[in-house]
């Protein structure tokens, strides 16, 4: 096996290992733990705070609720995600917005957030984008 081929195979293995996980934001570890479908969604901020508004899906729609676990490191700058929101792409590259905002994301060391995306029933999500980080969802959204 040539050196190049070995490196190529190692890169593929590494990519598979980090599926649904991303370190694209300095000091912030993110991992998608599950994706659920529901007719209602809580629009809690991230980390969960004072916003407990709920939303209801219309006929033919549902919420794809993406749960992400975060771990904040010492190099994380709180300004990076302040007031930002993730977006998602489906398999046809259609972009979706979540109403759940990052509010004070550096205030807690470890937390889990749910990001609801209003989608047509049966829509599969491909990618979760959090600013510069893209997390592959294909292995999670089955």
């Amino acid at each position, binding site marked *: 096996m040539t050196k190049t081929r070995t490196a190529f195979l190692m890169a593929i293995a590494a990519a598979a290992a980090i599926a649904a996980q991303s370190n694209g934001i300095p000091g912030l570890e993110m991992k998608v733990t599950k994706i659920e479908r529901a007719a209602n969604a809580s629009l809690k901020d991230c980390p969960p705070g004072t916003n407990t508004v*709920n939303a209801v899906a219309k006929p033919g729609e549902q919420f794809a609720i993406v749960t992400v676990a975060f771990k904040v490191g010492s190099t994380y700058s709180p300004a990076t995600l302040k007031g930002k929101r993730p977006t998602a792409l489906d398999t046809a590259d259609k972009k979706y917005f979540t*109403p759940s905002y990052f509010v004070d994301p550096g205030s807690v060391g470890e937390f889990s957030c749910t990001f609801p995306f*209003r989608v047509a029933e049966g829509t599969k999500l491909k990618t979760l984008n959090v600013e510069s980080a893209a997390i592959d969802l294909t292995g999670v959204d089955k």
Partner: protein
Amino acid sequence: MEIDRRAFIASLGGPAVVAMMDHEAKAEALEHYMEEKLDEMVAQNQSGQPEKFPTVAELEAQIETRPYRRGAGTLFTGQRGQNVKILQPMPPKPTLKDYFELRFAPANHVLQSATRAMKTGMSEEIILACLLHDCVLSLIKPDHGWWGAQLFEPYIPEKSAFAIRYHQTLRFYPDEEAGYEYPDQYYRIFGHDYTPPQYIQDTYKMLKNHKWYMEPRLVTVNDLYAFDPNAKVSIEPFLDIVGRHFKQPKEGLGYDNSPSAHMWRTLARPDNPL
């Protein structure tokens, strides 16, 4: 918060009755947070089925079951079915802070909305609009966007007044890109089959193309209709912003002959018979 779910729902007549209760009726029995919990519990009791929201006709049928109108300001009705309380007198030259402490209190909703706006890095005009956007509910509820803007207009930046006036309209129209979803609370208080009246539809059309569309939109994004009851909030963190953007009249709010001075006086003396 710990609630004995079965006992609490049973005390109100069971899940079916609770599901039919309007916002004010529930508020008589519960604080905001208990109400929110109750809705969740009712939903759970219905075997995971989505909550059944009332229709416009069902809400209308409740009008003659109350001794007050839903549009009455909170200063004019008793809380939780109780009689109204004696209010502390206002100082001779009242400030906005005085009104917050003596007439708008506890003001959790607006304080939490403004706190969130501050934490998400919004402009000071938006934070101020969030802080003031629902204060007029102490006086009157219908068309509170317009009433609220009129109350504050002589004293605040034009953008903040615009945001207060039109947040009421934009509450009826989701905007996924801006991060605003139609809240389930509106299905409860307006009915799931509610259609906004023509003047709201026309205002929305105007706003969609307005250069300041995002000002009221950001108020709706931070308008936490259901909120954390345990969050500790106060007016203190906003006093600097108020100092920079709120033109406090030296005569005191209500005594400066501004176009809205009479509204402030009504808030100061809601027990006056005429």
